[in-house]
C-alpha cells in the first residue's frame, strides 16, 4: 500500500487491467430505474428506492439504466475504468437509447472487423457462417443467400409453432408498435422484453470484446446492425422458451418475470462466454494488443510506422 502523503488514503491513478475479471466470467446484467448513481470511496453506489446499494461493477457486464436514473460524472468514470458497459434503455429495458464505452482499449479487432466487412467476399463468408451457426445439423452446400434466408425463415416459423404448442399459447404473428406498448399481446410483450435483454447483452459483448456495433454483416445501415446480427444467433434458443413459458403463466409483471427467467436461462446456457467465443470465431483470431497503454502506430501504405515519435 502506498500513501500519497496527503493523508486521505490510497489513490490508484490507473486501473490495473489485469485485475479486471474477464468479461465472460462476470455477471451478465443489472437493470435499475428511479436510481441515482454516485461514486463513493472507490465504489459505485446506487440510491435506489429500497436503499443505498453498492454495485459490484467490476464483475458486472452490463448496467442497464431505465427511466428515472441519473448518473454522476465520477460514477461513469468508475464504470468505464472497470469495463462495465452502460446502456440507457426504455422502461422495462425494452428499448435501447444509447450506450457507453466497453472495456476494450485496442483497435486491432475493430480493424479486422472493418476489413472483413468491406470486402464483399469475406463479408459473404461471415454471413454464411452466421446462418450456419443457427443450424446444428448444418446447411446444404451451394445455397444462394436467398435460399439460406428461406431456410432461416422456416426455422423461425417452426420454432414459434413448436413453443406455441408446448405451452398452449396462441401464436399469430410477431407484432409490436413502438408507439403503443400496452396494446401488444402478452406473448409479444414477453418476446420484446426478452429480445431487449439479448440485444443489451449482445451490445455489451460486442463493445467489451472490442468490435463495432455498427458494422453489421447480415443487417446493414443502422448504428446497431452488428448487435442485431449477434442477437439473432441466440434469440430463438434463448428468448422463446422463457417468453412462452411466462406468457402461459397468469399474473402481473410479465416483463419482469421474463427478465428474471432469462437470467437463469442465460446462466445455464453460459451465454456471455459463448457470445465472446462466437465473436472471435466469426471475426477471427484472438491476438491482443501487447501494451494497451502505448501510443498507437501511424498508418502508411508501405506498412505501419511507429507512433509517438517525431518523424521530422
Amino acid at each position: 500500500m502506498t500513501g500519497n502523503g496527503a493523508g486521505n488514503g490510497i489513490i490508484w491513478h490507473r486501473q490495473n487491467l489485469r485485475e479486471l475479471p474477464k468479461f465472460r466470467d462476470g455477471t451478465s446484467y443489472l437493470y435499475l430505474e428511479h436510481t441515482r448513481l454516485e461514486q463513493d470511496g472507490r465504489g459505485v453506489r446506487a440510491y435506489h428506492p429500497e436503499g443505498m446499494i453498492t454495485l459490484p461493477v467490476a464483475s458486472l457486464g452490463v448496467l442497464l439504466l431505465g427511466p428515472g436514473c441519473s448518473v454522476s460524472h465520477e460514477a461513469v468514470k468508475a464504470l468505464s475504468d472497470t469495463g462495465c458497459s452502460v446502456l440507457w434503455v426504455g422502461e422495462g429495458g425494452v428499448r435501447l437509447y444509447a450506450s457507453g464505452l466497453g472495456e476494450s482499449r485496442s483497435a486491432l479487432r475493430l480493424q479486422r472487423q472493418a476489413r472483413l466487412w468491406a470486402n464483399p467476399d469475406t463479408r459473404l463468408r461471415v454471413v454464411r457462417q452466421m446462418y450456419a451457426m443457427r443450424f446444428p445439423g448444418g446447411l446444404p452446400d451451394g445455397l444462394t443467400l436467398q435460399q439460406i434466408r428461406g431456410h432461416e425463415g422456416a426455422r423461425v416459423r417452426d420454432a414459434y409453432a413448436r413453443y406455441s404448442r408446448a405451452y398452449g399459447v396462441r401464436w399469430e404473428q410477431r407484432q409490436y408498435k413502438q408507439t403503443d406498448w400496452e396494446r401488444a399481446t402478452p406473448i409479444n410483450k414477453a418476446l420484446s422484453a426478452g429480445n431487449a435483454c439479448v440485444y443489451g447483452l449482445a451490445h455489451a459483448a460486442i463493445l467489451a470484446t472490442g468490435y463495432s456495433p455498427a458494422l453489421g454483416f447480415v443487417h446493414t445501415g443502422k448504428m446497431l446492425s452488428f448487435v442485431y446480427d449477434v442477437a439473432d444467433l441466440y434469440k430463438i434458443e434463448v428468448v422463446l422458451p422463457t417468453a412462452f413459458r411466462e406468457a402461459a403463466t397468469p399474473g402481473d409483471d410479465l416483463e419482469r418475470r421474463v427478465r428474471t427467467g432469462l437470467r437463469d436461462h442465460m446462466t445455464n446456457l453460459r451465454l456471455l462466454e459463448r457470445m465472446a467465443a462466437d465473436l472471435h470465431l466469426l471475426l477471427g483470431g484472438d491476438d491482443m494488443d501487447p501494451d494497451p497503454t502505448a501510443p498507437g502506430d501511424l498508418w502508411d501504405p508501405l506498412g505501419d510506422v511507429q507512433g509517438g515519435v517525431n518523424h521530422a
Partner: protein
Amino acid sequence: MTLEAVPPSLRGELSRWLMEVQPGVYVGNATALVRDLLWDKAVQNARTGRCTQIYRANNEQGFAVRMYGDPHRTLVSLDGFQLVAIRNARHIELQGEYDPPEDDDKL
C-alpha cells in the same frame, strides 16, 4: 455465517458446527439441511442481535444471502440479482427526489 450482538450461548452453539475465523464470523461446509437448521436456530435465539448467512447456490452469483435483525439493511433482488440495500442518511435525503412518480389514479 456472521453473528453480531447475540447471546453467548448461540455463539457457543454455532462454534460446535462451524469454525470461528474471526469474532462473530463462522465458516464451514454444511449440508443444506444443517445450514437451514443453524439459520433457524440463529434467528430464534438472536434476540436483539443480527445475523447473516451466505451459502453456495446455483445461481448467477454463485451464492445466496439471508439477513436478520438489521432494520437498516434489506436484501433486494433486482431481476434475480441479490444485493444489499442500506437505508442511510443520504438515501433518505434523496428519497423524495428519486422515488417513482405516484400513479395518477392515486391522487
